[in-house]
């Protein structure tokens, strides 16, 4: 029994935080958010070299061979800094290949993903906007040896930057398939969409006669439905991890404002009407940490409870980040409504984070079912 991070893990956290404090403070975040790419290629290369991108990729394929406990630490810090990058997308692509690819596929793609020389993403969501394997409607037709895709995927994260796209679709009698396609393939086109949070980019993907060669299919172990749920689950846990840091960042800004801003000859943080909502936010974030850390441990240790734990973590995270954003803005008063103050950046992030890989409506229902209701 030990619910604490190890010294090595704390060291990782400090390293990540130090680098992001220096290289990616909120002024830099604003700059990157205003840039066409939305992230810094240079910084991306640097964290690739530092091994952050390949943290969970097996050492044999150029990664760090660490677990989600470490990843949660990394993501908490990127969430806290509102770090703009295709990190989660690349991570999900690499996880899919690691978990469901064969050795050749791993050799082919993972080393590049581990150092960030290629960027990956997951193309899952469709018109129905439902984060569940049953909701996949995209259907491939057979053409000789291979499969051909015609259709659309929506809200594909970081699609403009991505080189490799993990696509989920059906074929033949409706069986689910997962494949890795190159974004430069013939017939692939991307329509970027306007994000509320300019640090999180996405777009719609149109596939017109895109060929899926047999060696692009990820077919290893287990049912495709389970594999897809597994990937979505990883997305949910990654997002919940970022939410921990983002909510802490919003709280820290607001606490500082409450100490600095005076009204009626007092810092506003003196009034219970201000301090109590902040205490509630703190309580919620600490509660969320317990859920997220346990889910990561369960994932790394093959615990049966991982699906339930992940849904609990993401459901609660979606609620926490929504409230933390609103509380932050409201307690800032009029300046919270300006572009100048940073709290709005966190509010905008909450609009991204609440629904991503399923909101609380989705995950509480899932948790109810997993819990036997």
């Amino acid at each position, binding site marked *: 029994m030990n619910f604490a991070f190890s010294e090595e893990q704390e060291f990782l956290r400090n390293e990540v935080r130090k680098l992001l404090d220096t290289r990616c403070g909120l002024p830099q975040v604003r700059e990157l958010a205003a840039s066409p790419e939305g992230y810094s290629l240079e910084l991306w290369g640097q964290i690739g070299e530092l091994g952050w991108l390949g943290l969970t990729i097996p050492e044999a394929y150029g990664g760090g061979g660490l677990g989600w406990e470490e990843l949660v630490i990394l993501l908490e810090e990127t969430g806290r800094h509102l770090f703009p990058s295709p990190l989660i997308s690349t991570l999900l692509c690499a996880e899919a290949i690691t978990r469901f690819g064969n050795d050749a596929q791993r050799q082919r793609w993972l080393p590049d993903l581990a150092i960030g020389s290629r960027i990956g993403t997951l193309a899952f969501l469709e018109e129905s906007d439902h984060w569940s394997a049953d909701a996949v409607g995209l259907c491939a037709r057979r053409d000789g040896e291979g499969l051909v895709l015609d259709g659309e995927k929506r809200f594909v994260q970081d699609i403009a930057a991505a080189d490799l796209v993990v696509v989920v679709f059906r074929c033949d009698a409706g069986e689910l398939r997962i494949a890795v396609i190159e974004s430069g393939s013939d017939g692939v086109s991307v329509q970027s969409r306007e994000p509320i949070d300019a640090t999180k980019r996405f777009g719609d993907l149109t596939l017109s006669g895109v060929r899926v060669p047999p060696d692009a299919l990820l077919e290893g172990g287990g049912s495709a439905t389970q594999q897809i749920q597994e990937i979505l689950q990883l997305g949910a846990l990654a997002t919940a991890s970022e939410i921990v840091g983002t909510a802490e960042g919003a709280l820290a800004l607001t606490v500082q404002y409450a100490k600095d801003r005076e009204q009626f000859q007092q810092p506003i943080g003196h009034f219970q009407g201000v301090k109590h909502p902040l205490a509630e936010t703190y309580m919620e974030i600490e509660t969320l940490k317990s859920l997220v850390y346990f889910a990561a441990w369960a994932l790394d240790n093959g615990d049966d409870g991982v699906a339930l734990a992940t849904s609990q973590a993401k459901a609660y995270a979606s609620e926490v980040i929504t409230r933390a954003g609103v509380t932050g803005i409201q307690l800032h008063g*009029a300046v919270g409504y300006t572009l100048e103050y940073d709290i709005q950046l966190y509010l905008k992030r909450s609009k991204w984070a609440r629904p991503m890989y399923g909101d609380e409506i989705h995950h509480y229902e899932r948790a109810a079912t997993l819990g036997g209701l």
Partner: protein
Amino acid sequence: MDFDFSPEEDAFRARVQSFLDAHLPSEFDARDPDFLKQWNRALGEAGWLGFAWPKEAGGGGATIIEQFILKEEMSARRAPPLGSDFMGLTWVGPALIEHGSDEQKQQFLPELLAGESCWCTGYSEPGAGSDLASLSTRAERDGDDYVVNGQKIWTTLAHVAKYIFMLVRTESSSRYGGITCVLIPMDSPGIEIQPIPNLSGEVSFNQVFFKDVRVPVASRLGKEGEGWRVVVGALANERSGISEATEKLRHIEDLEELARKVMRGGRPAVEDPEVRRKLASFRTRIAAMRLTGMRHLTNQLQGRRPSSETSINKLLRGQLEIEMDAFAMGLLGTQAQTQGRWQYLSLSYHGTVIGGGTPNIQRNIIAERILGLPKD
């Protein structure tokens, strides 16, 4: 009690409706300047501008109920309610009529009634937000002029306004008593305007800096040290908040439409029992807002002092904005992370909730003034 309107009032409502049928397009962009200009002219010609003002001052001499009906019908159609000079018509005009000199009235009122002026008002300062009485922009007497130095913030429309109606401190020993109201052209030397983009990146607020701005004493409105009295105003303006209640009614209608359109768990969201109950709960509170507005209206009609209705509706509205937004975003699902009308609202409602006193200020007002609990 009587929630019916008289035949005359019903006839008046019909008149407003025909005006709207004739002059308000079914689709319009409330931020398009051409549309606003045309709409403004139509309002002026029909006599709706200054409709609440006394006839002697060139206004429409409308009753409180007529004002109520006019506002309700306008907001029911989402019309820009009082033309583009909302501050001028609602706050400045009535204050001029009550406290202005003949010269001031002649100078400003005709322009206001023609829909040709544009006023901003300067109350808040960086150090005086919820606590207005601590304002510190000074006006020092120098011969026949005041010399104004200081800074205003959250000044809506200052970047387009022709005049500012503002509070300055003419005496520093008294918190409320040393405050005076002055009227200043925005092109006076020494005024510098700095727009404040809001979180959606649009400019609606400004900071206004005053450096040795000379204002003739004749431009003072009311007596020195009586700025509060001037601002509080006394004209028989309809203040039930009916426009806000009607706006929320449009909001819930849109939300119901959204709930019919989007899916949840494979079925239209509107079939989810919680969605139905939530929508009904919003509608209930919005219905109550309108009714509470009518209680306020009744107090005004009967010449009674306004009670707590305004604070109640502000507090309730803040609660509704937050809940309705979280609900709308939940209906939108992943769609919430991209730009759109609902998402725009989701950022901009925060201005509404904070504007005119944060929810905590409303709670203090109720707790201290009505329930008699100790002051902070």
